[in-house]
């Protein structure tokens, strides 16, 4: 791990592009589930799952950038922090317009959640750098990003299970009361933390890490689709599962190809490299 310590991550897609993909893709996916109400169907629940994949890519890239500063064993922890912040913000933002305390249209729920997540992220980032003295230059920015991504993943997966992001009418009965929120929470956290953890090392590459992010987010989307069988009709649930499975197969293949291309060598079996080979 020594070779990856203490420097900014490099290569591939620039951070701002990934942020744009994550925010726009994530929010668009969540809002497109509203087509369900417009057309009185549940077939568009699949969009929530696709939105969550975009958000996971962003989250995994943010984890990659902050963890390149030698966080090592802190990688899993940071993924848990992401969804911890995200889930609080998501529930707060979605429930706020429905309580009637403030006169806000319900359609703004996901945006409020996203902003609240960013604020919580900022506070945690400031605490880590100023009070715990972690002194990671991009800590505040990364925590904002990770919290925002975590919040979008949580809303996207919940909307794909429930068919809508309305809290009291859809998410509370079909995601929270059934306990599927446990899957949404830990599935979201693992898809954000696992890609960089799985590729950690001096020869890590951004593309390979993000392939894992897409592929793992897709497999969680398949399980969310299966869970949605109890909330929405079977055809819509099957569509979510099928789309997730296709994305998984495509990106798992891409990951395997990049491993075969980038590894020192891939052999069927064999002895350890000889002393001369290691010179």
């Amino acid at each position, binding site marked *: 791990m*020594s070779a990856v310590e203490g420097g900014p991550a490099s290569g591939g897609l620039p951070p701002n592009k990934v942020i744009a993909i994550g925010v726009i893709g994530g929010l668009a996916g969540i809002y497109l589930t509203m087509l369900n109400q417009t057309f009185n169907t549940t077939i568009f629940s699949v969009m929530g799952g696709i939105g969550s994949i975009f958000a996971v890519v962003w989250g995994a890239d943010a984890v990659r950038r902050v963890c390149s500063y030698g966080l090592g*064993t802190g990688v899993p922890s940071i*993924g848990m922090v992401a969804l911890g912040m995200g889930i609080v913000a998501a529930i707060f933002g979605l429930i706020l317009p429905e309580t009637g305390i403030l006169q806000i249209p319900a359609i703004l729920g996901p945006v409020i959640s996203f902003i609240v997540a960013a604020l919580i992220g900022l506070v945690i980032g400031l605490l880590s750098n100023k009070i715990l003295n972690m002194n990671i230059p991009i800590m505040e920015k990364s925590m904002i990003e990770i919290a925002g991504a975590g919040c979008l993943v949580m809303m996207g997966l919940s909307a794909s299970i429930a068919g809508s992001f309305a809290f009291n009418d859809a998410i509370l009965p079909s995601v929270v009361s059934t306990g599927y929120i446990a899957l949404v929470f830990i599935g979201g956290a*693992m898809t954000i933390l696992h890609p960089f953890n799985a590729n950690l090392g001096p020869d890590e590459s951004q593309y390979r890490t993000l392939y894992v992010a897409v592929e793992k987010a897709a497999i969680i989307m398949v399980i969310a689709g299966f869970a949605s069988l109890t909330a929405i009709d079977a055809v819509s649930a099957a569509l979510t599962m099928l789309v997730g499975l296709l994305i998984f197969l495509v990106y798992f293949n891409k990951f395997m190809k990049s491993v075969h291309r*980038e*590894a*020192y060598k891939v*052999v069927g079996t064999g002895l350890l490299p000889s002393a001369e080979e290691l010179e």
Partner: protein
Amino acid sequence: MIDPITGLGIVALMGALATIAGAAEDLESDVGSQSNPNSQVQLAAQMDFPHRIFNKAISGEPPAYGLWCATGATVASVLLAQNMSVIFAIAIGSLAGAILLGLFSVTAHMGRTASQKRFKQPIYMDMVIGHVPSIIAHGFIAVFCIISFSYIMDHVLSHPFPLPLLAFLWGITAGAIGSSTGDVHYGAEREFQNQPFGCGLNAAYSGNIVRKAESGLRNGIDNVWACAKFGGPVTGLALGFTVFFDNWRSTVFSGVNAVIAGLIIVLILILANRLVEVQGRKAYGPFKDEDGGAETA
């Protein structure tokens, strides 16, 4: 309300399931070197010790087991809602959780090894094909037992939480106990079997793990064979006791009495731990090397 005798029987059954779950959970993590011992497997290649040991860096065991159990319980709940029989629903759910574990293992091992290109660590495909089924099999037993006792807790003991949430929490508990109890046996003893017992890990030996077996090159299957003799069963016992005592106190007592009983159990455990530690220190003392005299930290 169930009568006390039946209640105790159910609690004992849950304890037995948890014991099997804990043992299988720890052995599964030993096949792939997850959690704490993984750092030495990762370091080995970087210190010029290429090896044939599976590098399963999915994440820490607690969140990982949280995910497998939450997935399994979610699938099982959906199937139960469609009126499937309980055993089948839990078995199919656990299979889904175990396959997910297999998929995460593949990306973790291959991704990490590919990221060690400059240290010339090859990827051996026979290891992937040989280890992943063993990981899935151990994972299936662990997830099945955890979801089973969560189901008993939910449906028989009427716990207010839904099944996926209970399985998620017990998955995290199982992972945490496996990571703190069983890892010591694998990480400190099996990985460094070539060092004198009790010498501690000198920084100079970092990454110098045992890479050769009784015959041929050592792999994860050899490690699980060794750990099944002590580390796995001890982890099982720890999780089994946790589940048994926790449910025993709330079955036998109620209200504030149950809380007091819990506190007394914790107090007895702390005292017992202290006694074992003091006895161990008295019996073995600080480590002395073979030339005699020199103490190491």
